[in-house]
């Protein structure tokens, strides 16, 4: 079934076998399971209380993953009645261990709406709720069949460049790229067709954001997922490749190490002020070598859930931004991961699944269409002198904002204009910034360029160095059903066009140093004078 989506040539066949094997095991459990040793009501009363209070809002009163919040998030909450769990230490097709379930409760599932409850509920409460969750499925009632975790071992040494090269070759040969794409951004040829076993839309994980990997982003976590698969999703287990001697254990670790190497060493930290250094020359192209020396800033984006129509499932998780300026111009480079070069009709099925999975503020559900990808960069109309700024979400009728808007349907052209609220945008005549865009293996890179102060200063935002300039970002992935108010948004951050350090800045430190040294020498001289004076008197 899923094997058709993920499989290819040789690797695909092996995977299909492994997947079916996993299901066979699952089926065997199903056939042999008998409702013996049912947990007594007493055991789960406390757990039921905790569940009803803190979990049912998403997972539903009966554990079917159908709580009131369920249609306001993708991926949807786990349906406990099927006992199919992604994050396990057990072979594909088998039940998770209690420790596996407790880990998901404690740490949450990164990149989803499931938070970690370790600091929120007591040890007792979490154990109680774990026992209760298991009562939703009869698969757990046969306590004679304890799920056995796989003995994972530990990562082999020597994870250098050579090891990553091996990992990369295997990444290609065992079929990872079919879904996760050539560069690992979840943009492989099968990506638009993916859905979970319940038919919900599912993205192939963007392997460049390990802080969003559901089961954790370490090399060990990744290796465990490769061994166990993510049951209920198109992600298969690769354990059978080891059993068939198609791969060695070390080689599978190399794949995990390669996948880990795609993400930054540390989870990006959000910094408030985006510094644009002074450059001799303005880089107009997204792949100009001048950009490599410039510091990069990460700004997270989240769903637009303020104005109708709200959007609860944004595909763009954030933007990587660099900026430089010359004496008279600015260049701003915005890079973001996007699985699709929209508009792309291949994704219409996915859009349909996304729209069907979510409740909307509309009375009627919209029909999927090949919408483009979009980006907006927002500034105020003038640099504010105090802390007051226009409304972060595209200004208001009385206090508009100045925006650059770019769309993948007209890539090398951007529009400048004034937004007066989320649904009103008035382009400014003759004020378009320069724009160059590249789509490269699941990533958009767009550079905007403009004169700092334009000839028509009345309508164009005047950039000035040495000031904190409010800036915000908005992005839409057309192939995720995003257009209009359905987008990912940020709040205000700041852009600073740094000035070179003027010589006069060094005057005060030098003065302070001379003064300190003089005073110090004076103290020493006085002390020595006094001593020799005393000595002289003796």
């Amino acid at each position, binding site marked *: 079934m899923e094997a058709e989506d993920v499989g290819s040539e040789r690797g695909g066949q092996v995977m299909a076998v492994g997947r079916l094997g996993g299901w066979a095991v699952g089926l065997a459990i199903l056939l042999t399971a008998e409702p013996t040793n049912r947990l007594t009501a007493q055991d789960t009363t406390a757990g039921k209380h905790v569940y009803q209070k*803190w*979990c049912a*809002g*998403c997972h539903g009163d009966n554990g079917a993953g159908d*709580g*009131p*919040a369920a249609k*306001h*998030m993708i991926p949807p909450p786990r349906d406990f009645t099927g006992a199919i769990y992604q994050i396990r230490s057990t072979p594909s097709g088998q039940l998770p261990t209690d420790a596996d379930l407790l880990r998901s409760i404690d740490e949450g599932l990164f990149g*989803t*709406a499931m*938070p970690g*409850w370790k600091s*929120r509920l007591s040890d007792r409460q979490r154990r109680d709720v774990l026992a209760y969750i298991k009562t939703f499925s009869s698969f757990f009632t046969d306590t004679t069949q304890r799920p056995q975790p796989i003995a994972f071992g530990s990562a082999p040494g020597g994870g250098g460049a050579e090891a990553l090269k091996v990992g990369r070759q295997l990444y290609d040969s065992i079929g990872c790229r079919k879904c996760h794409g050539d560069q690992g951004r979840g943009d492989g040829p099968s990506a638009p067709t993916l859905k979970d076993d319940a038919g919900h839309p599912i993205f192939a994980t963007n392997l460049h954001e390990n802080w969003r990997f559901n089961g954790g982003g370490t090399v060990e976590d990744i290796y465990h997922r490769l061994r166990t698969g993510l049951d209920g999703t198109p992600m298969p287990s690769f354990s059978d490749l080891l059993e068939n001697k198609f791969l060695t254990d070390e080689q599978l670790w190399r794949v995990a190490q390669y996948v880990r190497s795609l993400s930054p060493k540390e989870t990006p930290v*959000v910094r*408030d*002020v985006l*510094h644009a250094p002074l450059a001799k020359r303005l880089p107009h192209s997204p792949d100009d070598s001048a950009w490599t020396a410039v510091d990069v800033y990460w700004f*997270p984006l*989240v*769903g637009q*859930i*303020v104005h*109708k129509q709200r959007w*609860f499932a944004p595909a763009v998780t954030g933007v990587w931004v660099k900026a430089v300026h010359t004496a008279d111009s600015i260049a701003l480079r915005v890079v973001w991961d996007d699985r699709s070069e929209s508009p792309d009709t291949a994704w219409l099925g996915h859009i349909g699944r996304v729209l069907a999975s979510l*409740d909307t*503020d509309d009375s009627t559900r919209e029909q999927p269409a090949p919408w483009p990808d979009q980006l907006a960069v927002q500034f105020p109309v003038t640099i504010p002198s105090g*802390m*007051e*700024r*226009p*409304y*972060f*979400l595209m200004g*208001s009728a009385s*206090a508009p904002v100045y925006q650059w808007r770019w769309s993948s349907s007209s890539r090398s052209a951007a529009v400048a204009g004034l937004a007066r609220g989320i649904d009103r945008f008035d382009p400014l005549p003759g004020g378009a910034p320069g724009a160059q865009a590249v789509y490269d293996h699941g990533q958009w890179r767009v550079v905007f360029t403009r004169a700092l102060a334009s000839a028509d200063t009345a309508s164009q935002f005047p950039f000035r160095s*040495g*000031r*904190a300039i409010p800036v915000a970002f908005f992005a839409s992935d057309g192939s995720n059903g995003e257009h209009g108010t359905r987008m990912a*948004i940020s*709040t*205000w951050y*700041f852009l600073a066009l*740094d000035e070179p350090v*003027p010589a006069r*800045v*060094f005057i*005060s*430190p*030098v003065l*302070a*140093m001379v003064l*300190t*040294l003089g005073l*110090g*020498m004076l*103290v*020493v001289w006085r*002390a*020595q004078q006094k001593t020799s004076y005393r000595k002289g008197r003796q």
Partner: protein
Amino acid sequence: MRAYLRHPFWQAVGLFVLAYLVIVFVIPMLPGSAMVPSSVVLQYMATVLVGILIWVSDDEARWTTFKEPLHEVLIQPRLKLVRNGLLAAVTLVVGCLTYSQVKASVAAPPNLRSIHPAPPSQITFRGKTITLVGLENPLRKQGEMAPHVAQGRRIYYQNCVPCHGDHLDGQGHFASGFNPLPANFQDNGTIAQLTESFVFWRIAKGGPGLPREGTPWNSAMPAWEDYLTENEIWSVVLFLYDQTGWKPRTWEVSGGAK
């Protein structure tokens, strides 16, 4: 070594270092504690320094012994290297500190926000005037609480969870994208301090309805009167208190809650 341990100067130095280590490394490890901000560390260390100086100067003999090593460094020919080294080091530190103070660096402007700004005495809700002063949650007088709380729970999970979170602690999966962070209802500084009418006002009018001191331009809180009825908002208010266990501030006790 023993001589050093007994010497007031080295005792003072030891105490100073110990205090620093405690403040920076031990305090954050205490349960319910957090990293001490550098400005607070500076204040603490200044206090410690004053305390130490009072202690060493309290006794004439101790003060004299305390000063000895300092004096030695100033005059002894054999300590010339230490003396010059100290002079150079102090001079350099002063230079660096001054430079970091005067160099031009653009920082985000201070964001002074009143977290609980004074509410208006009355608001217009979908064209209807509602007086907030003295207003109680009408649902508390309408029969059984359970159905109202259940309605509030449903509305909360359909609308509020992405920001305010499953645990009502302001840590929903969208929370980190916003500044200010969504309100934490578990904290004793939010709904525990407020009347239900205040909470109703904040939900109904959202970020755009904040007065200037509440920095309305930054808040991502929607004006929920666009989505919910009066009754629905009151049920959510009821749910917030029911789920967290806080009791709303009442008009009778406080006379005029802000």
